[in-house]
């Protein structure tokens, strides 16, 4: 009896999740009248704006990941090693982006960093890109921090640090050559999640007026019929790829540990 109900619940759930995926795939193939074709994908891939916005978002994801790693790894390490009393503050800050909606944060940016402010970041394209990268870093912060902090928990931070120090290593060597390689799996898994978040992000990029992939998709969605589902399929494949890489990295890590 329980098993029948369980199967029913599970299959109904699967139906709900599969139908939109089937729907978007089917719709994206319908561009040519009367037969299925990849015309919509051809149009999408033939659009230079697709490649421009896609590579723009890709570069920004890279920047976001770099900023995130440089910000989170030393902080999480330091909190664990020397400043356990700062943990509540740091954890509170890393959870803030889950409480304050992204649209409110970016609204604050626009008002705080406008051309007449002490830090006129929105005055130039580069400044706005930096601001957007920082915005994305805040969005990724909860995931990045938790991932790295969990990674640090599995290694003996204090002993590793003392061993490195007694061999004459400075802080930069310790962080770059001891700590970072040890939490690489956690960093990579945070990085892939960041990539997935940044590639599809719409609100911040749209309000800061930057040519990112999210606003491009929205623009196509408002004006075309068959290209949007094709873009949805591409975006879904991208998300799937990021999550797949995350799992792969985690599995490889388990393998390594088993060998060691």
């Amino acid at each position, binding site marked *: 009896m329980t098993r029948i109900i369980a199967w029913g619940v599970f299959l109904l759930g699967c139906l709900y999740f599969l139908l939109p995926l089937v729907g978007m795939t089917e719709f994206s193939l319908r561009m040519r009248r009367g037969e299925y074709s990849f015309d919509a994908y051809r149009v999408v891939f033939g659009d230079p704006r697709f490649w421009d916005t896609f590579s723009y978002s890709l570069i920004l994801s890279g920047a976001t990941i770099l900023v995130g790693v440089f910000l989170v790894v030393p902080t999480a390490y330091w909190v664990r090693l020397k400043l356990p009393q700062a943990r509540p503050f740091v954890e509170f800050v890393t959870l803030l982006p889950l409480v*304050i909606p992204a649209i409110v944060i970016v609204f604050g940016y626009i008002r705080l960093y406008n051309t007449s402010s002490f830090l006129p970041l929105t005055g130039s394209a580069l400044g706005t890109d930096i601001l957007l990268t920082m915005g994305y870093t805040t969005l990724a912060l909860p995931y990045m921090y938790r991932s790295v902090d969990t990674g640090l928990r599995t290694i003996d931070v204090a002993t590793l640090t003392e061993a490195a120090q007694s061999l004459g290593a400075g802080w930069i060597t310790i962080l770059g050559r001891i700590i970072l390689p040890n939490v690489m799996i956690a960093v990579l898994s945070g990085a892939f999640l960041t990539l997935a978040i940044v590639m599809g992000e719409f609100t911040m990029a749209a309000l800061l007026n930057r040519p990112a992939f999210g606003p491009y998709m*929205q623009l196509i969605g*408002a004006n075309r019929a068959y290209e949007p589902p094709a873009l949805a399929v591409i975006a879904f494949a991208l*998300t799937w790829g990021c999550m797949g890489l995350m799992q792969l990295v985690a599995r490889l890590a388990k393998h390594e540990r088993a060998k060691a």
Partner: protein
Amino acid sequence: MAEGPIRRAARRLPLEWLGILPFAVFAVLFLILPTLRIVTGAFQDASGTFTLQNLIDLNTPSIRNAYWTSIRLSLITAALGCAVGFAMSAAVVFGGLPRGLRSPLLTFSGVASNFAGVPLAFAFIATLGPAGLITVWLRTEFGINLRAMGFNLLSFWGLVVTYLFFQIPLMILIITPALDGLKREWREAAEVLGATRAQYWRMVALPILFPSLLGTFALLFANAFGAVATAFALTGPQLNIVPIKLFAQIRGDVLGNPNLGFALAFGMIVITVIANTLYIWLRVRSERWLK
């Protein structure tokens, strides 16, 4: 010679705190100051003097309606997301389904919970929109006209159906480890003492799960409350919910008063902060009860 006093002074200063200085600077510049700017802006008029007028001006039918719709949308999608996610997770963990289904479900949930925003809206338009797969199939095969039955994807309930696509997986991701944490011994002990299945759930399992259920509910609420992209790509700027209204306000001052925009955003902060405080308070209470 001069080194002595300096070193002594340095020892008195808590130098370890310098280690998190970069993080603190980042947090102040890109999280705390922007939020404070919104909060102070909500209490200022155009010339910068203190006023409560912006908050009073929020009390128009259109803005009240936007808040009410947003709160309802977030509550309903969080509740349904929790219920359905819990059911699916429980089906896999306790329902006697093959163990092999578990890992694909969790992987898929990871993907689906991140598949939000603009492309999600496209997927649902292609499925339940006027020319979507299901709409057309129901019309041609069964003569069921969804639109005539009052269903419109570009409406409140359409938004609910769409939001569930990222709400349910998030619930599954969080609650499955919690369900795994329920020890078999607890159930057996309850059974030995003569508890029925319902009693076990009501008096043992649910109280233990209560904090995580509650936390996920608060998270799902905030998740739906702040979401802009899905709703914007689905319905454009016309749907009257707070994030869409704020989006239009930031882009083009549709309210005709920049400080009213601050007040609108401040209202969003207040609601998410209330939701989270409520969560923390209930969590502390329930954890005390568990001890």
